């Protein structure tokens, strides 16, 4: 007779934190979206190697707006962390503050990136670098937009008092996604703004 089946412990019910299916689904969504960026960076590297040097625009993308932008995006990480910490402890105020801050910082990054696009002399059709530059930053912005939307929803849900110390999986799932968006943002920044300077 199978004893394990009978002597089951008390089990949590529903969608408990990291045991929830959504959390697992998000991890894999991050894996696949991450490879998307990896393939795009591979293409970038491929151009760099094949076109050896003569594909950079005369003026590399300026740091004036990009640098403050990426700093703000990175600061959104502790903000998001505060939010999910609040959720896990059932402290709604911390949760709300964290979400608002992350939302504001993320949006600020988005705005700066948009301004950067406008002031950028480079165009989409200007050689390979222009094509790669806009595709890479554009795809990242699309992911950022999804994250901001998620933050907005989460803010509404938290304000409605949906979450407490036992029920908060959506917050953790969104936080995982948000960290991913930030990591990609930093990678894109290094690839497009830093590497062309050190080559």
């Amino acid at each position, binding site marked *: 007779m199978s004893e394990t089946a009978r002597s089951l412990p008390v089990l949590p019910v529903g969608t408990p934190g990291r045991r929830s299916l959504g959390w697992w689904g998000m991890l894999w969504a991050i894996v696949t979206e991450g490879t998307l960026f990896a393939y795009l960076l591979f293409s970038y590297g491929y151009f760099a190697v094949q076109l050896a040097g003569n594909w950079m625009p005369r003026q590399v993308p300026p740091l004036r707006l990009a640098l403050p932008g990426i700093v703000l995006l990175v600061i959104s990480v502790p903000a998001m962390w505060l939010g999910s910490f609040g959720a896990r402890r059932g402290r709604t105020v911390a949760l709300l503050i964290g979400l608002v801050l992350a939302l504001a910082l993320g949006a600020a990054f988005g705005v700066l990136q948009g301004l950067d696009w406008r002031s950028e002399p480079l165009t989409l059709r200007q050689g390979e670098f222009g094509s790669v530059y806009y595709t890479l930053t554009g795809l990242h912005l699309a992911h950022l937009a999804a994250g901001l939307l998620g933050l907005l929803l989460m803010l509404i849900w938290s304000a409605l008092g949906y*979450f407490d110390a036992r029920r908060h999986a959506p917050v953790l799932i969104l936080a995982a996604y948000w960290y991913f968006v930030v990591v990609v943002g930093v990678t894109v920044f290094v690839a497009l703004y830093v590497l062309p300077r050190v080559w």
Partner: protein
Amino acid sequence: MADPELERRPEFATATVAYAHDLERLWETSPGIAGWLSTVDHKEIGIRYLVTAFAFLCAGGIEALLMRLQLAGPDRHVLGPHAYDQAFSMHGISMIFLYAFPVLSGFSNYLWPLVLGSRDMAFPRLNALSYWIYVAAGLFMYAGLAIGQAPNDGWYNYVPYANREYNPGMNEDFYSLGMIFLGISTTVGSINFIVTLARTRAPGMSVNRLPILVWGTLTASVANVLAVPSVSLAFFLLWMDRQFGTHFFDVPQGGQPLLWQHLFWMYAHPWVYALVLPAMGIVSDGLPTFCRRPLVGYAPVALATVATMILGFGVWVHHMFATGIPNLALAFFGGASIVIAVPSAVAVFAWTATIWLGRPVITTAFLFFASMIVLFVIGGVSGFMTGSVPVDWQLTETYFVVAHIHYVLIGINVFPVVGGIYYWFPKFTGRMLDEKLGKWNFWTMFIGFNVAFLPMHLTGLWGMPRRIYTYSPDMGWTTLNAITTVGAFIFAIGVAMLLINVVISLRVGRIAGANPWDAPTLEWSVPSPPPPYNFAVIPHVASRHPLWEDRLGESEVTSLVTRGLLLDHGRETIGTSPLDGDPDVILKMPGDSYMPLLLSVGLTMGFVGLLVHLWWLAVAGAAVALIAGVVWLWPRGTLGQRRVRHV
């Protein structure tokens, strides 16, 4: 005692009639059109996948037969050159993307929860979404054919020919956007399989007890998660080049055509394995039932499945041997292409040994499974040959390659799939397929196939290039081509026999009962067709062959299928730990929902808008999709996603 909505100890007992009745009410799909549009039952979705995939097989088959009529003799005029281009492209696309993989998703969707001892897939609504997007993306690409602008650059769509300069019509836009669209379906479907496997198995279903089909689909799913982005990106870049004047593949501006080939094959080669590994799993699981013994070498076969895929990621360059890449790369990838034969050989030996050591019962399903081994060997040898670089330089772009593709794809995909239909049809429908018609079905397909494709190796060796719409009588290819065409029609008649058998047997087939083949795995422990909740009590699994334990005497503990965990506080199933399958959570499962359908409708609008540059339509589509998504994700108390309110 704490709140039972937050935590509880599941009851362990036998199901009573009243309890089963409750479950029925909780899990059943409402009748009529409402249920049809909103169902998330994996069994219903699995069947839809199978039926839809067969519809695309027939469409692709008709295209093939038209091509064969055109090539039956020299200088014929069934299809002109442009029509022929679209025919072989749509044939390849239909077969590779719209039939061969989705049909396996159909089996896996239907069977996974049943063989794993669960009540549904991990994400039932995502499952429905994946199906709807698949249909929409398939119709999207076929819409091109309807207006005479189907993709026309072969299924691998090389640039620069696919660039706008050389291909100004909408043909390639249908293909580019269609593939990005389809990629969403594949990706969410794959994530669903991975999480289902990791989290929702019956207690005791440890990784060393999984059916090989599960290993195959799992491996394919992980590969898809890592590979699909590559092709979606490639098609996205192509679309940008075509519509917005970027320069990714545009040669005069420094664009890199070989980048297309890298991105495409980094995806497509693993994909080819995704088309065969689950099918090999069908054979590994089905064959033993008819050999009356367990599969010989379970562990090596499971490992070989995974190893094939890992190696499969390292061989994409073998599609590019003739492109002038460096010699070192040639040596590396040529070597890898030959090494990959090793895990395949493991599987072949395991099946052969299973037949050899067993007492085979010659059913139709057995014939399909066993013949697959033969076709696999032939396809494998011709693949092995083209894996060798100098040979490939001679044979690439000839009919030798066409023969190879078909041996591999028909041999390792179509034959196991049809065998799988004969094997599981009783489970799907409660009735047996007719065995007599089945034998005719098998022999017609087998003979037709070999008549069509065996001579084709020779056609290739005699120099006939692929993808030409006609040839002159002096080339000496006339007789061989005529034979191939005859064989193709015999094969098509064979496929028609299957469809006829299905239609007849649905009405008058013999009633099957729960386990007509006396098979060993969990899906056969439930009635045919299974109730909407699959398992009244969650079974406990103690071995690889829960239903053969008494005669195999392998393990001391026995599996429990009639006594088990009762879960009926709403739609529930058990969540288990990834490796050992120990229960660690009681999961709440979502019910039927229109949101997957609505989301797919929104995405379809969006892609149509992008295709025809109706930006307002694209935006409207995005808005619809967004609304569906928000409703879908809104935290629900019934799913345990938000705070429990105590009144």
